[in-house]
Every structure is written in C-alpha cells, then in structure tokens.
C-alpha cells in the first residue's frame, strides 16, 4: 500500500521524530510507514489523516 505521509510531512515542515511524537508512535514506525514497509492499523491511519486534516483515502492508496 502506497501513502503520501512523507510528502505531507515535508510540506508541513516536520521531522519524522516530530510527527512520531504527535502520533504517539516511534520514529522508526513513521519511517517504516513512509517507506511502505509497514501498513498501519485503522486507528493509526485515522490518526495520521486527522493530523493532516484530510481523509484516509487521500493519504493511503491501494497498489492494485
């Protein structure tokens, strides 16, 4: 699953650590999310979307 977390984070001028702190996860988790190595749970996906004031569909994209 692809996502635009890196793009949104960089547009917001945030570091991975700052975003991780805001989401209540580790920096490694944010890094894994951005690199597509880890697919978040639904609560985390909602938290990401809420943080960037958008929707899950706008951030996460199905690879198929």
């Amino acid at each position, binding site marked *: 699953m692809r996502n635009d977390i890196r793009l949104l984070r960089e547009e917001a001028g945030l570091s991975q650590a700052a975003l991780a702190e805001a989401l209540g996860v580790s920096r490694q988790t944010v890094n*894994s999310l951005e690199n597509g190595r880890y697919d978040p749970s639904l609560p985390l996906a909602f938290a990401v979307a809420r943080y960037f004031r958008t929707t899950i569909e706008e951030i996460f994209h199905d690879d198929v």
Partner: protein
Amino acid sequence: MTTSEPRRGLSDRRFLVAVGCGLVAVGIMWLVFTLAGEPDTAAGALVGGLAVTALAIVVRWRAKRRGPSVDGGFSRVLLGTADERDNTILTASLAWVGLVAFGAHAIGLAAVALGADGFVVIGAIEAVLIAVLVGAFILLSRRT
C-alpha cells in the same frame, strides 16, 4: 489503545513488581519440580527463568540509560512504551519462538533419550529460544 495517546513508560515500581512476580513464579516452578522428584527439570526451569529475568533487567537498564529511541523496539517493549509496530514485531517474533520450540524440544527429547544431561539440554533449549526471540525481533524490525 488509541495511537494518538501519548505513550507512558512502564514505571520502575511496576517493572520491579513484574520482576518480583517472575522470580516468584520461577521459584514456585523450581519447588514443584523438585518436590515431584524432577531435579533436572527444576534446575532447567530455574536457569531459564533467571536468564530471562536477567536479560529483561539488563535491557531495561540499557534503555533507561540511553533512552528508548536509541535501543529500538525491543527496549520499548520492555519499557512499556511499545507502539503498534513494536507489538506486531514482538508477536511475529514470539510466533517464531513457538515454531522453533517444537523442533528444539523434539531434538532435546532425543538427546536426553540418547543419554544427554537433562540440565544441559533444558538450558540449551532456553538459550536457543532466547536467541531466536532476539534474532527474529532484530530481523523483523529491519524488514517491517
């Protein structure tokens, strides 16, 4: 648990209580096996239990000294600050431990049947399972 809540670490008091409970459990296991006339199993349980407890104390001490972000997911698990990815990795690592345990115990049983010392076999199995847990956690952390 929601991911938006700030993560709070496991307090020292709770960690000490957990370690104390673990030691009591190990002690009970040792006593039960000893009373049941199984000194080798009792010794194995004692060595294994103390090894795991000591490992937990060392990792927590390192994590507290350096900070959880430096040591990575394993220390966050022990500090009680694990996030969902850490828990996913831990679950997968424990699944590997369970899988390897089947083979390790079969080999251990065969070794005892062939005359190997039960104390050594049980200690070796504990060491192998701990190594599998740590190795699987590190490997999965890099891939996940």
